[in-house]
């Protein structure tokens, strides 16, 4: 990771960099149209020949808006990449009259026809606008006449009034990229910081002062001197180039592609007034915290919740004589049961407290800022914490960027401080839902910059008790299965089964037949382990004159889910998890044990695995567990982790053999 401030005064360096004519929109070379594969990735179905973006600040009546121009050329090699021809351009509408506007779209498909390169345009009538949500519109079109060998190229211009949204740039895509360039023409009134992810340096980078002079305000020139109130300035042009970027390949068990793909982010840092003086927009964490506390949809929202919160505490939640823990449980439970999360994340509230209370539904910030207010009014110290959810990527704590954050939770700072979330009912009051567990969050409290670790280090445990009674006469075993799962293990069962006994039955039908008497416990109880049990049957397996029992019922890992030999990203399991099995097998009359599988034990920094067999009269007892000690494993640990899983697959799928006496 590298942070580079864009300085206002800059040493100009010129470096010869050949801009080949083939990067001009509409100029397709024979070489490109005749390409049949990309030499650096011969299996690639398509390649981005170039992707060039430019952001400039242009004059408007109110000041400056940003104009983003993108030109992209893609070569299609085979049918697998044909969906590259479907283009979506999202635009943001703030709902208060400010909106991004797509000013123009030009798009052509180029094919070789009778030895000539022929371009076919996308007709304007075939460009559609979709209303994705209240705030997001999408311009959509499909390139015509796309086949193997086609080149598709588009150029579009988006104008945005949102200076905070200086367009970011993804250098990497799901197909390889030959050339990716982004240039930003800065005006001296705004200073941005940028952050480059996924690589440490550019193939080419240049910063220079534009030749053209621009003016702000009224210029009155006399003898070469400006006597007016306006000023004259030049743009600073920053250009970043990366070449020959491989396709970004998805991997399972990663937190988010946002954490790994090569991209550059911008954040507005400072505003320099043309008439003198400057203002930090956001240059430090303390500044950001101050801003948030003043913000209508954040700090003020929370304050405005107080009146309603006090009323609720007077009339609906009785906290008299309660301990701090009891209070916490009651308050969180109240919010969880009285308000429905609408599934939308958010660091800012989406409505007024009054509306939220009336509508009984809101986004994560609506709910959790309200929760914070309830805690505060109940006499507990509580502050919002802003975080980035897992799918939203990780926060880089060195750089105070607003856009890192997309969700608000609460720190309750009592005798035993904890983080709280009111959106989800499946967990104890002091646990965050899995989507929130993403390294760290920022405490929004005046006068301090505190980072809160979000993973609690608590191990989720899934206990299974299994009893197997083989019935030789009917060639069946009767099986009792009882499951108790706490923390995130319980959460997962609750969220998947929704306490529906028929869903539980269906799930376990791959292990057992004729499942009956499904009972569940503690679904509505956030703290106690979620539990369920039932009875089922299983055909006895015979091999020769032996009875073979599979005591684990295929309920442990049966197949290694890691297929690749190596790995470049960390494995992110979200939480440390243990699975334990206590199994009893009743030896039927007239039979004895021919052989146990061997016991097994492994205990290292990554995992603990153990399997023990013991005979107790007519009962065989198996005590087994596997425990992934870490939530996150580094790529260097991958091979060992994969090996652990191989061992689990082997040892947790072995059989007991019984033989006639």
């Amino acid at each position: 990771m590298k942070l580079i401030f864009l300085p206002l005064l800059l040493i100009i360096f010129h470096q010869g960099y050949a801009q080949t004519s083939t990067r001009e929109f509409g100029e397709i070379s024979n070489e490109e149209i005749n390409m049949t594969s990309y030499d650096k990735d011969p299996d690639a179905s398509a390649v981005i020949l170039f992707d060039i973006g430019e952001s400039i600040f242009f004059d408007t009546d109110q000041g400056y808006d940003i104009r983003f121009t993108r030109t992209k050329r893609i070569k299609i090699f085979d049918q697998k990449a044909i969906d590259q021809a479907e283009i979506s351009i999202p635009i943001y509408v703030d709902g208060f009259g400010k909106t991004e506007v797509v000013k123009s779209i030009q798009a052509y498909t180029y094919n070789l026809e009778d030895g000539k390169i022929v371009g076919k345009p996308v007709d304007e009538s075939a460009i559609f606008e979709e209303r994705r949500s209240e705030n997001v519109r999408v311009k959509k079109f499909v390139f015509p006449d796309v086949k193997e060998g086609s080149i598709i190229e588009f150029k579009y211009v988006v104008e945005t009034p949102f200076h905070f949204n200086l367009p970011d740039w993804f250098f990497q895509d799901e197909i390889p990229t030959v050339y990716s360039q982004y240039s930003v023409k800065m005006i001296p009134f705004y200073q941005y910081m940028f952050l480059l992810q996924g690589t440490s340096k550019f193939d080419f980078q240049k910063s220079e002062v534009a030749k053209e002079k621009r003016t702000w305000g009224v210029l009155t020139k006399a003898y070469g001197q400006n006597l007016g109130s306006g000023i004259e300035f030049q743009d600073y042009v920053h250009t970043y180039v990366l070449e020959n970027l491989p396709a970004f390949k998805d991997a399972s068990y990663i937190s988010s592609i946002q954490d790994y793909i090569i991209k550059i982010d911008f954040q507005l840092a400072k505003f320099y007034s043309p008439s003198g003086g400057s203002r930090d927009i956001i240059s430090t964490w303390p500044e950001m915290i101050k801003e948030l506390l003043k913000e209508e949809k954040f700090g003020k929202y929370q304050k405005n919740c107080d009146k309603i919160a006090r009323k609720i505490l007077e009339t609906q939640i009785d906290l008299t004589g309660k301990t701090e823990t009891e209070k916490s449980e009651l308050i969180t439970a109240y919010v969880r049961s009285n308000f429905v999360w609408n599934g939308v994340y958010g660091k800012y509230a989406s409505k007024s407290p009054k509306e939220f209370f009336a509508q009984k539904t809101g986004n994560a910030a609506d709910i959790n800022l309200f929760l914070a207010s309830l805690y505060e009014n109940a006499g507990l110290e509580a502050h919002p914490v802003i975080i980035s959810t897992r799918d939203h990527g990780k926060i880089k704590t060195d750089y105070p960027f607003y856009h890192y954050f997309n969700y608000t939770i609460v720190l309750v700072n009592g005798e035993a401080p904890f983080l709280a979330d009111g959106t989800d009912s499946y967990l104890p009051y002091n646990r965050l839902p899995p989507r929130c567990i993403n390294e760290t969050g920022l405490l929004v409290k005046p006068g301090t910059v505190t980072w809160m670790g979000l993973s609690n280090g608590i191990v989720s445990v899934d206990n299974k008790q299994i009893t197997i009674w083989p019935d030789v006469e009917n060639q069946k075993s009767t099986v009792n299965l009882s499951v108790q799962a706490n923390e995130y293990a319980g959460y997962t069962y609750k969220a998947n089964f929704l306490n529906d006994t028929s869903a539980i039955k269906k799930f376990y039908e791959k292990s057992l037949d004729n499942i009956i008497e499904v009972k569940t416990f503690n679904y509505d109880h956030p703290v106690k382990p979620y539990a369920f049990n039932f009875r089922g049957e299983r055909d006895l397996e015979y091999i020769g004159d032996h009875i073979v029992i599979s005591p684990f019922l295929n309920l442990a890992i049966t197949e290694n889910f890691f297929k690749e030999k190596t790995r470049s990203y960390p494995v992110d399991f979200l939480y440390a998890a243990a699975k334990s099995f206590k199994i009893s097998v009743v030896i039927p009359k007239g039979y004895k044990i021919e052989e146990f599988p061997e016991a097994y034990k492994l205990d290292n920094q990554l995992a603990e695995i153990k399997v023990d067999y013991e005979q107790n009269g007519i009962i065989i007892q198996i005590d087994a567990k596997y425990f992934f000690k870490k939530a996150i494993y580094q790529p260097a640990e991958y091979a060992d982790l994969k090996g652990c899983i191989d061992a689990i697959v082997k040892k947790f799928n072995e059989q007991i053999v019984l033989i006639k006496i």
Partner: protein
Amino acid sequence: MSNAFEKIEESDNRYRSSRQHLIALATRENLIFVLYLLGFVFTPYGPSQAQIIDYSTNIKVEKNRKITERSYLIQVNNKEESWLSEVGLGYGLSEKIELLEAYVIGKDGKVARKIHKKEIVIKSHRYSGTFFGDRFIKAFSLNWSEYPYRIKYTYRITQDKFIHVADWRPSVFKGITTLKATLQVELPEYYDVVMNFPPTLSHISYQEDGKKILRWELTDYKPAKGEIFAPSDNEVEPEVTIVPHEFTYGTKGSFASWSSYGQFIEMLNAGSDDLPTEEKEKVQAMIEGVTDQREIIRILYHYLQDNTRYINVSIDIGGLKPYPASYVAQNKYGDCKALTVYMKAFLAEAGIQSFYTIINAGDNARRVNENFPSHQFNHVILAVPVGEDTVWLENTSKTAPVNYLGTFTQNRKALLVNGKQSQLINIPKLAIADVLETNIFAFQLDENGNGSVKIKKKVNGEAFELYKALGAQLQKDEQKKYILTHYPLNNWELEKWQITQLNRDEKELEITLAGTCSDQYRNIGKYQVIQPVMIEVPPFEDPANRNRPVRISLPINRTDSSTYTIPQDVFKVELPADIIINTAFGKYAARFSQEGDKIVIFKLFQLYSGDHPESAYNDLYSYIKSIEKAQKKSAILLTRLL
């Protein structure tokens, strides 16, 4: 039709897992010949005691407009059911929608809150298979904090264009009981309709103020749960369908007979054969000197596949009326209708007559009600008569062999559009020979069960379609991942694989796989055991939960032969007994033999297609169970010779 929109795409997740991706790919070559007959959007399913207390639909036809008013009173008992409070009302750009009321009723029976205008959100209605459509969703939430509560909302949709008066079902959400469902239809006195509804649904009709009034009411209706190998939900649920005798939708049409409906489709398609001159010349150039009709069809079909693709842009009456051939000529894309009229125009240019054929596509699609001419279709194919025979063309697929109708359209009725001669015809079925899948496994193992495995697989039918999509759509690394995840082998590494099709019109693929394997002997007591590769049998549900008759739409036909070459003179080998299970539903057989150092296992599994009464399910179930049992007992025992 309330579940016509089961799939609402929530995001353009370009990085979804390859398996989901493949499923999406395999099912993409798709439909869209959909009419938006019912406006409701959400059909999730959850366990629930929630109830639809009252669901009333009021349809009025007047002055060639159709005004539909729907009203819902729903009880929500707990937070798990609060998804019912998320309301989404679907409508088209050319329709007028008015929300008449929407409020929450608290425990005390009083109105707890009313919806405010600013809470209502409008967004595009996106569904899979459609690139762009001009339909929208009006969405709002009616949540409350104290349970139980009730929500009530009523809305009205006015349509100028319609072809059905009513497509009504008592169920609103899957799995949720409707306590009272009513349908009232008011028609002008001289407005002729044809109705279809099951005799179990009673109704009344009367005249009032020069209007004809029809009314259905059903109480305590519990929608059945989906069952495997059974007619689909929308075939078993009671439904009232009312179609006008005559209607105008783009052009005048009539449901008097299949012939008249076919004529309407033909009128709607009129002028869609406008192939531009250059394309006509291309056709002539391609078929120059070719006289064999089948060969001409093949050449033109290949041209279609290589140059066009499926993109559905559905605007206004585009659900029924195709974009013309000139549109496809320009864009080289279109939906099933556009691609079909384009192909039809090609053939016409070559002097070959072909017929636009509308069909209800899907793996287990609802059967066409032959006695009730109406719009019961969602897809189009092309029928090309050649002599006594017909060549069938699926025009949305870039990879299907010529004259291949796969799992998506096989074995059902379809409406062949041919002026007055338009009629329902039978689409041929995939017979048992058409779905054959053979696997030849060759294991070469040392005395510890390590070694190599080679597999030669030939696939037809459904597996053909799957592997065809895999080869055509997935990158190499995604293919490998898919095969490793879905192949029923343990402890192996795939090293090489190849998917071969003799030629593009071959209805069979050959797949060869090679890799290394380890630990292929299970230690059980004094034995080491080879567990032969299992043939996967479909999961069947417990007979106790079974209510519907049996329908097997697609047969299964699989043979596996496995050879295990093991070191000579190291083991004594004991083979299980051969087995043959022969039933009315299919056949299973397993044969075991040893020749020198080779153990050879042959397995066969067949499941025949067909319809059987509900009472037959027990037998079918025990057939499947007996196969599972037989496979469990098929272990080969090796005893080490000292």
